[in-house]
């Protein structure tokens, strides 16, 4: 097998190595093309990772359901009736829809994201106050800086504890003051702080100025009875959120005598849609990068072909001598072709190494994703393999041009005395 012929490779590397400057100039185009391709792909991946980081801690396959006002009269009820859920709905839904993995009921002291005044030592904060189950943490993860989140014991014993946001802390406490164990007052009831969370650039449904207390405590302290304001629901990974969303709405519509066609009575938000949109965005971005990169690569490989064409002309005499000494057209063709492939492959690797270096510098500068969505920009191994194979494939096609030109050189013409 000629591919493993040591002499052939020695001959090729010898030829390339003895003409360093020419070799280097030839490679430049592909080096730059590879750098551009890898940087584009890496940046696209970095953005994709950045978006993923933003959504880290939010279950992608989740939805939120709350009550609004009816827009259709039905069964004797007028339009504009406020829908208020009961805590028993959570159990009904969980029982009837097995695809629901987690269902976290929530109740608010005011309506969603409206604020109540929270007091401590003469300081006040306008915060949202939520009665929650610990399961909510499985759907929207809180980044705790201190202490812990609500747990089952808090629920079981209706403990008067709370978890506060960093904004709330800043308003209620002195700088550096310890919050854990301190009491804050909401509507005349004192709650002991057990945890504090900080804003984390993620999707933040609850805001940063919020106080979380156990759902059961909320019921007793604020006399909310069996009311429930809001549900956060995570569905099984392989189930479409929209399907479960419809089931939930159908059950709730039947229970609360809502017109089946009434779209406004039940508010809901499908988290997976956002994820899908962003996935589509990053996929398009990656595809575009690949597209641009491949054409840049094509340009680079054509440059190699071009320079090889020039070198073939320059090497007319050499090729003529080789032919006169017994090199068959096949040998000459193979040599030029392999020179093209080796050049391209080597240039590609050099470009790859350089661009990986640049990407890691970019990563160390902006890779934390604090300022904009850009995390760990790097190309994946399949992306690398695909671009590398494509490049080598192109170089074979394009190397045929100078190779055929070299074969057309007739020794008699090459050796003709000037």
């Amino acid at each position: 097998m000629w591919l493993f012929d040591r002499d052939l490779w020695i001959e090729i590397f010898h030829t390339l190595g003895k003409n360093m400057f020419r070799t280097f100039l030839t490679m430049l185009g592909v080096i730059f093309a590879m750098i551009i391709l890898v940087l584009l792909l890496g940046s696209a991946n970095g953005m994709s990772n950045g978006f993923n980081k933003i959504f880290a801690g939010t279950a992608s396959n989740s939805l939120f359901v709350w009550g609004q006002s009816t827009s259709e009269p039905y069964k004797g009820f007028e339009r504009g009736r406020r829908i208020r859920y009961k805590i028993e709905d959570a159990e009904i839904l969980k029982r009837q829809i097995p695809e629901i993995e987690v269902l976290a009921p929530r109740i608010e002291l005011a309506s969603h994201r409206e604020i109540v005044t929270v007091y401590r030592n003469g300081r006040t904060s306008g915060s949202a106050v939520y009665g929650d189950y610990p399961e909510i943490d499985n759907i929207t993860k809180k980044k705790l800086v201190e202490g812990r989140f609500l747990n089952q014991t808090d629920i079981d014993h209706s403990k008067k504890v709370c978890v506060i946001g960093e904004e709330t802390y800043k308003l209620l406490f002195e700088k550096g003051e310890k919050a854990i164990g301190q009491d804050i007052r909401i509507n005349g009831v004192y709650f002991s702080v057990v945890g504090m969370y900080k804003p984390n650039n993620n999707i933040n449904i609850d805001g940063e100025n919020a106080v979380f207390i156990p759902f059961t405590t909320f019921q007793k302290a604020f006399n909310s009875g069996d009311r429930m304001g809001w549900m956060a629901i995570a569905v099984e990974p392989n189930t479409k959120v929209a399907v479960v969303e419809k089931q939930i709405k159908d059950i709730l519509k039947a229970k609360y005598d809502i017109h089946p066609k009434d779209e406004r009575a039940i508010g809901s938000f499908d988290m997976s849609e956002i994820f899908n949109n962003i996935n589509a965005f990053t996929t398009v971005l990656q595809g575009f990068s690949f597209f641009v990169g491949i054409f840049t690569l094509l340009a680079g490989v054509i440059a190699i072909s071009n320079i090889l064409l020039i070198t073939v002309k320059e090497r007319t005499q050499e090729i003529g001598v080789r032919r006169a000494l017994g090199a068959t057209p096949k040998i000459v063709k193979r040599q030029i072709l392999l020179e093209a492939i080796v050049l391209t492959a080597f240039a590609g690797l050099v470009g790859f190494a350089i661009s990986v270096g640049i990407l890691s510098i970019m990563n160390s500068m902006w890779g934390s994703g604090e300022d904009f969505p850009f995390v760990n920009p790097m190309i994946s191994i399949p992306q690398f393999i695909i671009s590398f194979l494509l490049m080598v494939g192109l170089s074979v096609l394009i190397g045929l041009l100078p190779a055929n030109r070299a074969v057309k050189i007739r020794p008699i013409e090459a050796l003709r005395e000037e």
Partner: protein
Amino acid sequence: MIEIKDLHKSYKMGSNSLHVLKGINFKVEEGELVAIMGSSGSGKSTLLNILGMLDGADSGEYTLDNVPIKNLSETKAAQYRNKFLGFIFQSFNLINYKSALENVALPLYYQKVPRKERQEKAMKYLDRVGLKPWAAHLPSELSGGQKQRVAIARAMAAEPKVLLADEPTGALDSKTSYEVMDLIQKINDDGNTILVVTHEEDIAHMCKRIVHLKDGVIVEDKKIEQVRAEQYV
């Protein structure tokens, strides 16, 4: 060794056709040292090209070592050239980025001789032309005479049936020319068949036979008393 019968060759120059070789009959025995002479345009280079299988004849027969040379494919021609012929050119035609040794080893590479054997053989021939100490030098580091000696070593390395020299001294001063001719004579003494194309009388007289070409025909073919180049060196 070489037999040519009624060889014709013409070149197309636009609408005109230039009849260069007009029926050449010619025979070379083994161990001969033949000078092919003629002014420019006499057809001597064309004849050498055809003998060297670098060009094909229009009509006529050409037999080399009892092998008919006709309608060769490029690949076949390359293989025959490698097997039968050694070339020595006026402008040496060494590959400038290869050392003297690598240049000499090149025909052996195309014969698929293993690397080690190739190096040894190339060194042997380089030694024979007296350039063993220069083996690692690039052609640019050698004098004209040295370059031509490397080229001669290269032509001999493949152990061809016939050496074809196209104005081997054309680019050299007379002293170096005689050195090169001395070498060619010695190679011929060992029994190698050599054809030298030249237009210099003194060089031609260092061969054993002179073939005169004029306007595409052989006008004179005579055996001569060889002048040894040794005495001028």
